[in-house]
């Protein structure tokens, strides 16, 4: 197994006077193979993003372990090891505005990726790689480089985030609602591009989303999460055809479909 979570739990304590514990993620375990695409589906507040933050090593779990290529990621000692981890596991987030500093040109977001490289390429090589990556995601480098983030559309910005993956060539991409903030007509383009990239680079992907349509279309396996726990795990086909858990059934029943009408409206 390339990647595995074992009994991961995260408890947040809230309140100043009356302290209360909230179990955001409760005893979550799953595995992910090389080249596999999975989706973690759940409504807001189900602990999807907390799980993602732990996988990216941005917060520590209360208990449980995460293994990446047989190493416990919370026991990486040196900066070198951590850098290597972040080079191999990369995140893309929901908000296409947040990663960009409005004071800098968008080039910076792309060039900063090179900080994760072991050996810094020369300036010329960097320029070359950045241009290649932008063309790979269907953008024209001269339209993008030198611009500020407010001059680009949401779709373009999200494509730049995908271009970063292309520069980094990680082994696992964690995509937290990567297309929920862009228009439906552009959304399909970004998803297609993403799928092609992952196919070319043989990257594993973990989508974190509330959109069952996206999960079904892209993933091999779907995990349904509710109140911090994984309530159902099955292949995309069998989730759609034979949902077991009542929550999964409800979710499927509530998604507006294109080819059939709700009967209970």
């Amino acid at each position, binding site marked *: 197994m390339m990647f595995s979570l074992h009994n991961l739990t995260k408890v947040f304590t809230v309140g100043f006077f009356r302290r209360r514990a909230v179990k955001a993620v409760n005893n979550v375990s799953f595995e992910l193979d090389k080249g596999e695409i999975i989706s973690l589906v759940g*409504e*807001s507040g189900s602990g999807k993003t907390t799980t993602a933050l732990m996988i990216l090593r941005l917060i520590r779990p209360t208990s449980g372990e995460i293994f990446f290529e047989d190493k416990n990621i919370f026991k990486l000692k040196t900066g070198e090891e951590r850098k290597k981890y972040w080079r191999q596991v990369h995140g893309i987030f929901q908000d296409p505005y947040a990663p960009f500093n409005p004071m800098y040109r968008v080039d910076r977001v792309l060039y900063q990726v090179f900080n994760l490289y072991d050996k810094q390429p020369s300036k010329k090589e960097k320029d070359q790689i950045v241009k290649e990556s932008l063309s790979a995601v269907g953008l024209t480098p001269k339209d993008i480089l030198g611009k500020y983030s407010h001059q680009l*559309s949401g*779709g373009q910005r999200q494509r730049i985030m995908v271009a970063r993956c292309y520069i980094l060539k990680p082994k696992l991409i964690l995509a937290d609602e990567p297309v929920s903030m862009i*228009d*439906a*007509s*552009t*959304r*399909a*383009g970004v*998803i*297609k591009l993403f799928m092609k990239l992952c196919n070319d680079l043989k990257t594993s992907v973990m989508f974190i989303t*509330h*959109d*069952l*349509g*996206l*999960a*079904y*279309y892209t993933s091999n396996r779907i995990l349904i999460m509710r109140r911090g726990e994984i309530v159902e795990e099955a292949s995309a086909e069998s989730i*759609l055809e034979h949902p077991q858990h009542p929550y999964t059934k*409800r*979710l*499927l029943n*509530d*998604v*507006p*479909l*294109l*080819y*059939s*009408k*709700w009967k209970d*409206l």
Partner: protein
Amino acid sequence: MSLVSAENVKAYYYTSAGSVKAVDGINMNVNRGEILGVVGESGCGKSTLASTLMMNVRPPLRLVEGKISVDKYELTSMKRKEIRSKIWGTLISLVPQSALNALIPIKKTRDIIKDVLKHHLKNLNNEEINNLAKKRFKELDLPIEVLNMYPHELSGGMKQRAVIATSTLLNPKLLIVDEPTSALDVSTQKIVLKMIVDLRIRGIIESVVFITHDIAILRQISDKITVMYAGKIVESSTANEILENPVHPYSKGLINAVITPEREVKRRGLSYISGQPPDLLSPPIGCRFYPRCELAKDLCQKQEPHLTEVRRNHFVACNFVK
């Protein structure tokens, strides 16, 4: 019987850079008892159409020409003050895109409702207003406690439902909703959609104009669909007809870009419309869709297509339909 009819409506934003033609020559009808869906990408003039339909035009937006009549009133010849007292809230209500922010953070839902009602029905006392609000909340299956809560105590879906309930308190004939569910998750979305359908079944409202970019929602609730692109209507027909036999390349593109958990979607595959909607300061001459259209020929750069009836009640504006 039509409730709303708009003829050749043009509304432009006048800015220092020039006029932005957000609504450019729109003809539409909303029949009584009908849910009409308006769909298009962001920046296609959908929200401007919503404000224009209820004549909420304020600079920089201006009505250039056209006639809008709702019920027995001709809005385009009325003064703003008159519209405010006679039309808004009582004949037409709008639930704007930012409805979640429409609630004042320091006021309870009850007081917000009081403000609305006092504006329209001056001789009601507080108790009568309370009873009216309670009755309506009960009718719509909303918890009565919501009336005594502040907005921060309500969930997103509950806020949206409270806003819709407030805006339909005076039984308006037409309800215009602008992206009411885009910030909600699927289960909450369904509850809000159910509420809108319920309002119509109970006869509280007659017709709905539902503005959205999600055509799958329109499949579920609307009777008719109007597809808008760059300030113009490109296709309009019944919901089933549009979804099953779309004619305009833009409508086809919108439908094929939707992903839902269905086998048909996997079979059909995903496609998308490349490029972006044009800048409405200087929209392309001829067909506005030609820079992004796969079918585009030289003709499209010169000749502007007009809405023509291709089948019964199915109108398309494209140079390639006969």
